[in-house]
């Protein structure tokens, strides 16, 4: 739902067009959970290799 302004709901198709043209049509990561728990703002994060 990238095309709707979160505050005004006005449609802006150029956002999706830019994702398609400049970012191969993808943005952010689909993820699932290996082990759950509680996370909080400010928690350190790390990408495991």
């Amino acid at each position, binding site marked *: 739902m990238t095309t709707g302004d979160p505050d005004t709901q006005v449609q802006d198709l150029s956002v999706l067009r830019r*994702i398609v043209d400049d970012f*191969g049509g*993808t*943005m952010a990561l689909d993820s699932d959970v290996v082990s759950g*728990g*509680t996370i909080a703002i400010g928690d350190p994060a*790390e990408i495991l290799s």
Partner: protein
Amino acid sequence: MDVCRLRVAELWRYPVKSLAGERLERAVVTPNGVVGDRIVHVRDPRGRVISARTRRRLLALHGTLGPDGEPLIDGRPWTAPESAAAVREAAGAEATLARYDGPERFDVLPLLVATDGAIAALGVDGRRLRPNIVISGVAGLAERQWPGRKLRIGDVVFNMVKLRGR
């Protein structure tokens, strides 16, 4: 790669799918996603989910989770007549609300992780991506190298499965 500075910058939950969500200070994560995320949806008479892609006015309604774990719409119980009326007003006369918290409720996978670098590269309000977690300290488009790797936040570990198609 410098990974020491990565932090959780934002946490979001969308108790009612397609509506505006709520920003959290902390979130409880299970294999079924963020607790309380997208447990109510808007549907048509055939039971198909009505999305904000076609009914953008749904984004003007705010879904939050009440103290009893049930979603509120603009502060009222999702089961209230006023909530049903607000959803009909935004999504059409035949739109109704339904509760379903099985794993198929997600468009793709249970969580969406966004990063500050990619949001800045795109140059829009990150809320447009409807993330659950925004990680800060990520240089540019580094997230594009993340699929297949794991993200660890304390004891919580996520699989970064794939880039989200838009």
